[in-house]
Every structure is written in C-alpha cells, then in structure tokens.
C-alpha cells in the first residue's frame, strides 16, 4: 500500500495519492506540468516536503537509498555509467526471466551501452529496476520509444508486477494505455492532481 500525503515542491502540490497493493494509477498531463518532478519527489530525489508511506512505514524512517530500493523510479531518460549492459545488471534467474519477457537474447549483457537504441535502453532500465524487486514502481513514460509489440510486452510485464502486489504509478501521454493498465487516472495541471475519467483524458 502506498500513501502519498501533502507532497509538494515549489512547482506543484500539495499532492495526495493513495494506492492499494497491486493497483496502478496513471498520471496524465501536459509536458512541463510537473509529472516527472512529482515522481522524483516521491522517490526523494529532489528536495520536497510531505510524507510518503509504503506498507505503513514513512520514508523518513529509513535512509533514502533504502527507500529507493523499495519504491523504484524509472525515469524517462535512463542513465548509464559503464560500457556494457552487464555492468549495470547482475545476472540472476530473475533477470534472465525479465530479459526473456522483454524479448532480449541472453547475450544482451555483453552488448555495448553506446550501441543500444533508445527503446532498448528504456526496456533495459525497466528490467534493471525490477531486479530490485520493489514494493512500488514508478514508470515515467515507459513505452515512449517503443513499437506496438514491445509496448505490449512491457504492459504485460507491468500487469505481472501488479499481480505480485506491486503498486504502480505510470506517467503516460497515451490515454489508451492508461485505460488498459490503470484502475484510476489522474490529471496533473496547475500543480494540482485531479481524478479524471478516461473519456475526458481521451
């Protein structure tokens, strides 16, 4: 269960959000409305105020790095620091399974990061995050650079995670995707979060 209370920064808020285990909330909104900043604030990656509880534990009760392993954010632009994929992703049975789920051959770990396409990076960043086995997952436009088939695979993976009880917050510009995945959809505008019906979002 994820409970977000009065999270605010200079740009948005205070914002509240409540998610039961296995639930997905989609956040729509114009570029620049602060969607990504909201997720960064929840992950405590930018200075912000407010409380966030995950399964009843408030984030200030633990060091930030521990918090970010439980509640993992996958930003729209993934970051890489070493030459090969394998240096960013340890080989385990879980990662092997995740790689197969997203249609990567197992030798992907030897691939050069510099030669990956944007879509490949995006999918590998999701795998890298899921390898932490998070309690909650925040995805910032996870399928923005993907073709329909790859998008379907990622959506299936997200649903699988929800089935395991993972809370998901999804930023998307695709109202159809929000409809497919999310039980509840919000619109972020003027620093405020309002629940919206998908009809309006479309």
């Amino acid at each position, binding site marked *: 269960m994820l409970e977000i209370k009065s999270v605010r920064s200079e740009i948005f808020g205070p914002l509240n959000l409540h998610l039961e285990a296995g639930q997905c909330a989609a956040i729509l909104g114009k570029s620049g409305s602060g969607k990504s900043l909201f997720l960064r604030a929840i992950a405590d*990656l930018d200075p912000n105020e407010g409380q966030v509880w995950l399964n009843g534990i408030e984030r200030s009760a633990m060091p930030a790095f521990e918090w970010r392993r439980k509640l993992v954010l996958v930003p729209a632009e993934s970051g890489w620091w070493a030459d090969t994929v394998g240096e960013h992703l340890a080989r385990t049975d879980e990662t092997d399974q995740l790689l197969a789920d997203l249609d990567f051959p197992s030798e992907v770990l030897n691939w050069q990061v510099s030669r990956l396409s944007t879509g490949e990076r995006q999918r590998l960043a999701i795998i890298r995050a899921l390898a932490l086995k998070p309690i909650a997952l925040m995805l910032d436009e996870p399928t923005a650079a993907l073709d329909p088939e790859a998008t379907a695979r990622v959506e299936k993976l997200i649903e699988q995670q929800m089935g395991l009880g993972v809370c998901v917050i999804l930023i998307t510009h695709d109202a159809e995707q929000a409809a497919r995945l999310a039980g509840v959809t919000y619109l972020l505008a003027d620093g405020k979060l309002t629940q919206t019906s998908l009809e309006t979002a479309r």
Partner: protein
Amino acid sequence: MSSYLSLSYFDLALASIFLLINGLISIAFKLGLAKKLLIVSVRMVVQLLLVGLLLTWIFAVSSPWLTALIAVAMGLFAGREIWARQERKIAGIWGFGIGTSAMMFAGMFVALIALNTQIQPDPWWSPRFALPLFGMILGNTMTGVSLALDTLTSTLVRERPAVEARLLLGMTRWQAMAPFTRAGLRSGFMPIINAMAAMGIVALPGMMTGQILSGVAPQEAVKYQILVMFLIGGATGLGVIGATFGATMRLTDERHRLRLDRLRREEPKSTSPG
C-alpha cells in the same frame, strides 16, 4: 655563492626582445595576441618587482605574525585563482571556501612539518625559508585542487542521468558518486604525477636550476628538489582529496540526492588571465 652572477636591468631589457619578436609576428599575422602578451608581460614585471620589494621588507622585519599574515594572503589569492578556474562553480561561499580551505590546510600542514623537522631554519618560521617553501607547495596544490574540482563538477553536470540512475537503484551518495569522484581525483593528481615522472629528464625544475645558477653544488640542489617534490606531492594529494571530498559532500545531501542546484546558475566570462 662566489660564482653568483648579478643581472643588470639592461640584461632584462635585452631578454625581452624575444617576446617583442613574438608580438611583432602576432601583429603581422593578425593573431590578436600582441595586446594580451604586452599586458601579461607588463603585469608579470610589475608583480615580480613588487614582490621583490615586499620580500626585502618582510625579511628585514622578520616577524612571525607578519610571516603568517603573508602566508594567509597568499592562500587567499591562490583560492581566488582556484575559484576563477572553475567552469561550473559551487554557489555562494562554498565555491571559494571548499577549494581554498582544503588547499590551505594541506599546504600549511605540510609546510609546518617540513620547517620543523627537515629544514629547521632558526627561527623555524623564518620568512626567508617559510614563504618560498609555502609558495611552491601552494602553487602546485592550487593547480591540483582546481583541476580536481573542475573535473568533478563538469563531470557531474554531464553525467547527471548516470548519477541519478545509480541513486535510484538504491546506492548511497558515496557509492553513486564514486566513479565521478574518482575522475576528479585522477585529474587533480595528474599534474604532479607528470611533473615527478618528467623531473630531471624532460624538465630541470626551476628551483633547482635557480640554486645551481646561484652557485649551489648540483648534489645539494638535487637534495633540496627531492625534498620539495615530496612536500609538493604530499600537499597536492591532501588538498585534492580534501577538496574533492568537500565538493562531493556539498553537491549531495543527507537524503542521498544529487544537488546540482547548488552550482551557480550561469557562468559569467572569466576575467583573470591564465
């Protein structure tokens, strides 16, 4: 010192002919360097003449407080130079404070120990020994610290997504910053490592050359140079480590965030010549 050969001001004027030739070439080919060359040459002459006068006075007064004051002033000037050489400066007093304090502590620590154990002039703070020694240590530490900080901050700005990806995967700020901190340290250590490697083969160091020119036996000059290189190397290392650690602290926070908002927003044009 019997073989010391005094220079007249006419000798100096004669030596400046080579720079004048450079200036003429620049004018002929419109390289735009003539004015700059002229300014820095005049500036250098004035600075050195003034320092000559100042040192004569300081040696004559020979007071521990005056010596300490001059040492601090040298440190502050060097600190300003570190600050000016940063392309991406840390905002506020920290931008000046981190580099300057790391350099000052390292330089003074090493110089104080050297004066009290190896060189042992009488009195130990004698400005004739303390100030040139401190100056040499300071100059090299300054170069190392400014390179380390410049590399660290510009790497962090460029590699921000990578640092944040590491933080988002649950690393501590120290773990997340480690490869980038290491890049800063490496570039801070590079000049002194290069200098030591080339010492005596590619370059005859200025201090040693100066001693030999003024009549000191080469073996003695070499011993002094080795001592000074050890001191410089030690102080540079301490200063570089201290400054890199301080900047890493300042550019992250206790919630393990990367705080590039603590860098100055934009870069005004640098005015100080290299």
